[in-house]
Each structure stands twice: as C-alpha cells, then as structure tokens.
C-alpha cells in the first residue's frame, strides 16, 4: 500500500454505481395488449445517455396506426377491467408496487443512465416514491365509495397519458396508478428522451399478471402524443409538460368532449424571512432549484430574501453551492447530474445569455465539468427585478434568480405577479407568518420550511397557467372518475 499523507486535502474518490446487474435490451418494441409488438411504422429512434452522448438502445416510434392499435387494446380491456371485483383490482396494483420495490435498484440505475439525474436521487427519491404511489392508489380501488360524499364514482374509460422526461418513472406512476385504481385503462407515452424505465415498467406489468391491454405503453415523440390526444376513442387526456404544449392540447380539444388534466410549468417563489432558520433555509434554496438539475416544474426558481438577511443568505448560499459535486450521474457522490438533452442545455444557455445581456449579475462556482455530455453548473443571478426575462420565464435548469423584499405585502405581491401558480416556499420560524403567507400565495403547493417534498398522499397541481387538476391524495382520484348522483 502506498504511503498515505494525511496533510493533503481529502477528496472523494470515484464511487461508481454498479451497472453489471441490470438487464437492458438493445431494442424495444411497443407494449400493446399485454405483449411487445413491432411498430407498424417500422421506425425506431435512439435513446442516448446524456452524460456521454452514447446510444443505450433503440426504441420503437409509434405512428397513428400504432396509436390506434393501442387505444383499441385499451378499449377492449375496459370491457372487463372495471367489472373485476374492486378488491382483486387493487391486488394487481399492490403487486406492481411490491415488484417495483424488489427491482428498485435496477430501475434507479436505468433512470440515471437514460435521463441524467444523479443515482442518489433516483435511488433515494424517484423510485421509492414511484413504488409508494402504486401502493397508495392500490388501496383506493375498493374504497372509492368513501371518497366523494353522495356520489357514485365511475371510471371514464380509456385514458391517454403523456409524461415528461424529468421524473420518468415517477410520472408514469403518478399517471398509471390512479387511473387503474379508479377502473380505467391506459395508453401512456413516455418522453422520447427517457423511455427506458417506462418500458421496464411494461415488463414488470407483464410479470404482475395484470390483464392484457389494461396498460399500454407506446413510445414516440410529439407526433405520437398528438395522435393520442386527437384519437376519438380516448375518453380522458392527462398531460404533464410545458405550458406551451398544454395550451396547444387544450385548444385542439375545444368543442370535443374529452376530460383533461394538465400539469404544466412553473416559476416558484421561494421566500426567506429574517426570522427563518437561516442555515436550513439556505439548504432549502439548494433543494428547491438544484434538485434534479432544476428540471422541476415546481422548482423554487425565484428566490425572495428579506433585505435584512440578504447578505448572510447569499454568502452562505455561495459557500454551500461550492460543495455541490457536478458529474457522472452514476457516481454515488454526484449532486448535480447531466442536463437531459442537448436541446434543453441550449435553452438554459440561451436564458443565461439573456440574463447577462439584461444586466443581471451572474455567479457560478468554479467547477470541473466533464468533457463529453450536457452540463450546466449551479448558477445564481443577483440584482434582478420583476421585469427581467429570466425572472418571468421558466428556464427549467439549475439557474436561480435572487430578489430582495422588505415587507410581507411586497413579497406576496411579487410572488403572485406571474402567470404561473404551481408552488411556493415560505421560510420563517413564526407559525402565524406561515399561515398568513400560505393563505395569500396563489400556488397549488406551498412548502413551509421545506421544498420539493412529495408524497403519494399529498395532492399536487397548479393554479393559473401551471395547470388544471390535482395528482396524488384523495383529490387525485377525481380526474379519473365521473361522479354520478
């Protein structure tokens, strides 16, 4: 053994997550009617590891006919799925939850490989939440009569679900679990840059014995999604993605009887008062905007710090972000992983350039970025105001704008002064201040002394242009039911 010099600086060595145990195919087909079938389009596209640009697998591209096949399979399954005894229906969903727990590590590794998020996050947050989401909704299957007073809940039929690339497996769980528990059948399209964990979920669903056609997972890009939205035999559309696309979807459905829920973008205000637990608030800022590289619709991307503590907070924030490790998503010590795609990186860099151009002061800690792949260091913009573009528009990256405020009324007004309304954070040790702020802030989720906390039992969704409808909790059942009197 070489001599150890304890007077040198102590740094972490590489701690790579093992990938030897995972099972990935080179090519994935469409999951329709309980089987993997070749796409009628005959087309496949590559899915790539954003940390190094290398191809991982080929994934089928569903065309209009493939979408039609999937919807037909879902419709056929819908003839029998809601007729199954509700407790047996629940048991299938419990099986999915338990199997996901059993295969958790494999899911986590593939999630990080395909999407770029740190293995620590997929292992400790994404996958456990996804499994728990199935577990939670499994339990509702035979209890729906208690959820809505004086109403008889009935399923809607076939649900078309389109999910984004930022929490691939978790978003799949958020969509599929409540839909199944309420007796619907599903045609789901994962995002084209992150299809793999959805396809592994399809394999798991096969193993669970779930009746064929109840869940159909078809891969593709915008065209495939549009085909699902337009399909006349889909009763319900659930979409999570950008506000821009969400509006397009709503517009295309005008005059057509199809229920929709939308979970769109955000520009969350994170508010630090002078009487906050400052050290924990700084940690909260980090969790709000650098969790998942800031690819979070409910990210706390606008920091509001009370003037009297602004210097202290900003100083501590700069110190804290200098200890964040940017690197290989599969290294267990990585805090900030790869940006999901070259397109998204270009978008983020565009906004950073705008920020500089509009006169904001940028701060980025010195970091060693890997040579290959898509990377963006944690970025702060100081001396910004409400009218700066970077303060108004969603960047969807590790970029935080910082404003100061003096009074409660001022910060409420500024926080609400946005077309978005998904989330907000309030940091104070004063309970009454928490209640006051949470009553006045126009956001669907308000975190007090924490941020980016999720739970299957907790309803999530936005006000205003951040979306319509809630996912999670008792309230998350409603979007998938018609309530008859």
């Amino acid at each position, binding site marked *: 053994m070489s001599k150890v010099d304890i007077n040198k600086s102590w740094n972490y060595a590489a701690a790579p997550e093992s990938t030897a145990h995972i099972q990935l195919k080179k090519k994935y087909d469409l999951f329709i009617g309980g089987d993997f079938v070749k796409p009628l389009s005959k087309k496949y596209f590559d899915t790539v590891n954003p940390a190094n640009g290398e191809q991982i697998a080929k994934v089928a591209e569903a065309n209009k006919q493939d979408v039609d096949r999937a919807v037909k399979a879902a419709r056929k399954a819908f003839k029998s799925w809601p007729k199954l005894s509700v*407790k047996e229906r*629940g*048991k299938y969903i*419990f099986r999915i939850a*338990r199997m996901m727990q059993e295969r958790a590590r494999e899911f986590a590794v593939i999630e990080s490989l395909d999407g770029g998020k740190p293995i620590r996050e997929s292992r400790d947050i994404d996958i456990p939440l996804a499994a*728990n989401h199935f*577990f*939670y909704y*499994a*339990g*509702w*299957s*035979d*209890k729906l009569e*208690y*959820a809505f007073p004086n109403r008889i809940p009935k399923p809607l039929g076939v649900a078309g679900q389109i999910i984004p690339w930022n929490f691939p497996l978790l978003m799949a769980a958020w969509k599929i679990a409540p839909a199944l528990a309420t007796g619907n059948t599903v045609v789901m399209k994962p995002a084209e840059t992150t299809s793999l964990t959805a396809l592994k979920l399809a394999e798991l669903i096969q193993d669970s014995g779930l009746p064929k056609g109840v869940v159909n997972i078809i891969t593709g890009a915008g065209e495939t999604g549009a085909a699902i939205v337009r399909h006349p035999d889909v009763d319900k559309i659930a979409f999570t993605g950008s506000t821009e696309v969400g509006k397009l979807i709503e517009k295309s459905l005008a005059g057509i009887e199809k229920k929709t829920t939308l979970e769109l973008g955000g520009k969350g205000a994170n508010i630090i008062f002078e009487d906050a637990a400052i050290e924990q608030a700084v940690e909260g800022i980090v969790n709000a905007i650098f969790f998942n590289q800031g690819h979070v619709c409910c990210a706390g991307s606008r920091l509001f710090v009370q003037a009297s503590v602004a210097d202290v907070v900003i100083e501590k924030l700069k110190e804290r972000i200098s200890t964040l490790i940017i690197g290989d998503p599969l290294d267990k010590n990585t805090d900030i992983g790869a940006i999901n795609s070259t397109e998204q990186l270009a978008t983020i860099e565009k906004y950073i350039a705008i920020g500089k151009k509009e006169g904001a002061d940028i701060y980025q800690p010195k970091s060693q970025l890997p040579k290959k792949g898509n990377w963006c260091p944690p970025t702060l913009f100081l001396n910004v105001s409400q009218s700066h573009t970077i303060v108004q528009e969603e960047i969807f990256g590790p970029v935080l704008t910082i404003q100061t405020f003096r009074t*409660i009324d001022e910060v409420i007004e500024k926080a609400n002064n946005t077309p978005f309304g998904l989330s907000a954070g309030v940091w104070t040790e*004063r*309970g*009454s*201040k928490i*209640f*006051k702020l949470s*009553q006045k802030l126009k956001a669907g989720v308000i975190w007090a002394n924490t941020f980016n906390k999720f739970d*299957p*039992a907790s309803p999530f969704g936005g006000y205003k242009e951040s979306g319509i409808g809630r996912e999670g*909790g*008792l309230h998350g059942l409603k979007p998938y039911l018609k309530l008859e009197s």
Partner: protein
Amino acid sequence: MSRIDVLKTYKIFIGGKFPRTESGRYFHMKNAKGDLLANMCLSSRKDFRNAVVSARKAQENWANATALNRGQILYRIAEMLESRKSQFIQQLISTGSTKSAAKKEVALSIDRLIYYAGWSDKFQQIFSAVNPVSSSYFNFSILEPTGVVSIIASNENPLLGLISLLAPTIVGGNTCVILASATNPLVAISIAEVLNTSDVHAGVVNILTGDREELLPYFASHKDVNAIIYCGDNLKEIKEVEEITTENLKRVSIYRRKNWEEGESQSPYFIEKSQEIKTIWHPTEV
C-alpha cells in the same frame, strides 16, 4: 415404523416473544372427535398485566411510524398469511370447520388485511377536517390513536373474527392485548407466529389464550387500557364490561355479531372507533 410427529407447544404471545403463562396452568383443546389437539396456556391476570405493559411500551413508536409504514406492515402480514394458507385451513378444520368454509375464512382474512393496509394513509383524509371558524385561526381536527386497546375476540369465526378486530385497531396506531376465542385458540397463536415474521413491532399485538369469564374483569378494569372491544352476545358479560370500564372511562365497543363474513364487516368506521379527535387552533395573522 411410521414417523412420530413432533407435537407443538402453544405458548402465549407477549412483547414479541412466546412465553408460557406465568401461572403454569393449562386447559385441553380438543377437536370435534374429542381427540387432544394441544394443551393451551390458561392465562392469568398477571399475564394480562404483563401484556398491557408491553402494549403500552410499544404504542408511542408504533403511532409514530408513518402511515405508509404501518400499511406496508399490514400488507406484509397478508403476504405471510397467504404463504401459510394450508396450515390455517388445517387448523380450522381440526376444530370442526368444513374444508370450503375454512378456505373461505382464510381467503377473507387475507383480503381483509389488505383492505385495512390500504386504509392506513387514507382514513385520516376522510375523517379529519379543516374547520372554518369565525376568527383569525387555522383550525383543524385530526384523529389520533386512543392508545392501548383490550380485545375480547369472537368465539365464532376464530380467524376472521380476530383479524377483523386486530387490523383496524393497529392500522390506526393503537396497540392491543387480545383474548383469543375459546373455540379455536390455536389459530390465534398461529397468527401470532405470522405477526412475528411480518415486521410488526414487538408489543403491538399481544395474544393470550384462556378463560373469558376469569379474565374479562381484568380486560375491562385495567386503568392503563384506553379502550375495550368486546365481541359476543352474552348479556351478562356485556353488562359487566359496561359497568367496570366506567372506572377509567374506557371507550367501549360492543359487537354482537357472530358472523364476520356477511354484512358490513369491514369499513373505515372500525378504525375510527379506536381514534380520538384532536382539534388545534393556530393564529393566521402577523
């Protein structure tokens, strides 16, 4: 020469362990034909006292476990029971059940565990309330487990009746001491073995076998027990329970039903029965 069976010793279940009754007494458990099935422990009031100590010790941590965690543990109990189905069917048959009735009782018991597992993180959502009071306060009412519950299990439906009272009591964060049925205390001890392999915290469920007449006054009077659930229709016993429990104003639930398979034999209201309601006020102006 045919193989000699190893006969099982049925002990009682206290604090996650299987001690014998401190009294050393026993009673014969016989099958329908009159053959000896086992020498069961004839539990004493001291066994009950020890069980209450265990139940009390375990209650705070059990209530502090997340609802999800309790739900997953109940689901685990179902998994364990499912894997030992045939043993339980056999035991029910040995005390007079038909094969099909036994199979049905076991299947329903497993499904009922799953039913209550699914309520763990939901009953709070349907029974709690945010109350719109006429002053600047945020006012909310939540359910909290009552604490330690003593349970006199059903004599009919020895397995399903036991599960039907055990599951809703513990899923809400209570701990309990159960007096097993007289008709088939064996399944109760076998359930104890299932609980013991299901990550249920030690002391959350304690099971005694013995004489109802002898033990009932203690189950009803112990001042460190917060509630009692009595399943049966003996009017004299019911009156006794209702009288003695006034000593510390225990919450009393009397279920006269003999059949846990029919009617509404599972619902979130069984959970709610062992819960208290706490209302909290908090100012909302700064």
